[in-house]
């Protein structure tokens, strides 16, 4: 009978370290699914088919049931899958592999409710392997639970201070119509989609893994070029892929995908330089952002971003949208790796920002977090938004 262990605890209590230690204590190598692509996929494969082939057990004697199917093109590059799809692929590969133990570090938080239920059921039902899991949202019955309590206070946040620093803003109405986009000509992600985002309000993009939620955010910041789209800000045409992003501050799902420099100071100076070209650099002036950074748990501009623990990196990634440089705030899966206290405070902060006139769009599969923020749900499904 395989063991089942859940590692629970607040941020900075050593959850990831404990998962690694438990994995080392298993007699054999352990399949690992980390929170982001670098640690979920092998990095040795150029296609999904190769990733599966790499892990497939050669003797076929594991007797393990297969997890899920891969519904997409097997020749697609695994790194181009959405975060949730990468986790599903990793679980699929594990189910075909000969590994006798599995360690998961917060990765299941990226799954939609249906996939998450299926994944937890798979982990729970099989007795042919050991599992150690850290997850801020799961509490599977019958599992051994190790509660870690002693949290490192080095990265403590001052949420009241953060909310006290919120400035008033008047965000424009963002109207999107006739949006058509696809990564490949024959596979549209959006087809003639339309939606209007109202300021002073939070919007939750809600849909299954791989439905295009992150893609929509990338289009709005100008990183992806739609086949066709009409976007207006307060009625004025807005084409971020041509003129550059000047309205929407995005905190990405993986915080390491948004840094513009190695240190916090370097990152901010480059963003400031970009804003200065439009005469808007004040929002990122040192005397403005330093208190915010301190409130988010990083007291020094010389802090190397990649050296921070994941939960701290995720928090400091919110500095950019919270600084108020842009009137629209977009948070992609903000609660991944965050404990309940942080999620609650984040929800209150988002509400405060909306009350101050900002607009907000967030993507989350965390219903508890979403229910704490007054919001409008936008379903992203069947190539439509609304």
């Amino acid at each position, binding site marked *: 009978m395989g063991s089942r262990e859940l590692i629970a605890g607040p941020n900075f209590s050593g959850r990831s370290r404990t998962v*690694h230690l438990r994995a080392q204590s298993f007699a054999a190598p352990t399949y690992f699914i980390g929170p982001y692509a*670098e640690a979920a996929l092998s990095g*040795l494969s*150029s*296609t999904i*088919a*190769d990733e599966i082939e*790499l892990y497939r057990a050669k003797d076929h004697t594991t007797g393990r049931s297969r997890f899920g199917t891969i519904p997409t093109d097997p020749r697609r590059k695994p790194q181009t899958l959405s975060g949730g799809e990468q986790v599903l692929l990793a679980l699929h590969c594990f189910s075909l592999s000969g590994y006798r133990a599995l360690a998961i570090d917060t990765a299941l938080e990226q799954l939609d409710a249906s996939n998450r239920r299926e994944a937890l059921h798979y982990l729970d039902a099989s007795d042919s392997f050991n599992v150690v899991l850290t997850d801020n949202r799961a509490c599977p019955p019958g599992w051994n639970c190790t509660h870690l309590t002693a949290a490192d206070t080095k990265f403590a946040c001052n949420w009241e201070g953060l909310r006290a620093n919120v400035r008033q803003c008047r965000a424009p109405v963002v109207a999107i119509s006739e949006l058509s986009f696809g990564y490949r000509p024959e596979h549209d992600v959006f087809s003639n989609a339309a939606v209007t985002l109202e300021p002073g309000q939070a919007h939750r993009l809600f849909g299954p893994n791989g439905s295009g939620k992150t893609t929509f955010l990338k289009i709005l910041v100008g990183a992806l070029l739609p086949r066709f789209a009409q976007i207006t800000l307060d009625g004025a045409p807005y084409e971020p*892929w041509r003129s550059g992003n000047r309205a929407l501050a995005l905190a990405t799902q993986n915080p390491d995908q948004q840094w*513009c420099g190695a240190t916090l100071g370097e990152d901010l100076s480059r963003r400031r330089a970009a804003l200065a070209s439009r005469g808007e650099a004040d929002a990122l002036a040192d005397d403005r952002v330093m208190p915010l950074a301190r409130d988010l748990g990083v007291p020094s501009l010389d802090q190397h971003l990649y050296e921070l623990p994941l939960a701290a990196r995720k928090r400091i990634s919110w500095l950019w949208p919270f600084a108020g440089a842009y009137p629209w705030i977009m948070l992609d899966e903000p609660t991944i790796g965050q404990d309940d206290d942080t999620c609650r405070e984040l929800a209150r902060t988002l509400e405060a920002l909306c009350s101050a006139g900002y607009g907000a769009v967030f993507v989350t599969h965390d219903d508890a977090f979403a229910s704490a923020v007054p919001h409008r749900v936008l379903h992203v499904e069947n190539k439509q938004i609304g």
Partner: protein
Amino acid sequence: MTPNGAIALVIVVVLAAMMARISGLVALYLFTALFAVIEVGPHAAVALRRAVILMLPLAAFMILVWVGVVGRAPADIAASQPGSRMNALIYVSIVCARLFLIVAIVQIAAMRFATLTPLQFIQALRAPVALKRLGVLTLSLVETLLQAVDRAHTALIASGVITRRISARNLFHGWVLVQTVWLTAITSVTGRMRDKWPMEHTLQLLDPLLAETHAAPLATPDKLWIFSAAVIAVGIVWGDFHGVP
């Protein structure tokens, strides 16, 4: 055709192209066209289009430098002759013809195995496992770099540092993109090496996978193609010794 045969053929053609003068190049172009038609069929057009896209900027740059700026061929300069732009144009044409042939034969050979995934191609090679591992790791690094470019591009566009379209801002901040790409690539690789690979012993999975080779030695078509290319290469060397242009 086998992957080993394709690699051997490409090496012979590339070496021959590097030595070839005009007559040799004509022979190699005819040979490559025949190879493309027989082995790849209509898909050869895709390979040729890719070769043109890769070569055009380089050709334009060489014409600008040698014909437009220098105005003489290297041979003229070495012989202290006044030279002419026509000589420079002939020189650039021959160099570009060689390079185009090299790019085209690589693309056509790759197209021949388009149905295989990169891992299947490496698996099918008859080569030492260490060499195959090196192939997989090289491809892995290439994929990581491509992904890093995509991520860094997205990060800098979202932050307003650069724009998606061509702009003066991109010109001034291009170095930031390069730095961000390297930072992203390094952190991706170190993250993988720190967290995933040691726990899983992931690299050890490659050994049985790459050792499982049922690859045939060179097939008959391989031998025919390689022999034909070798004959042309010998002809090129012979022609070189006897002053055939």
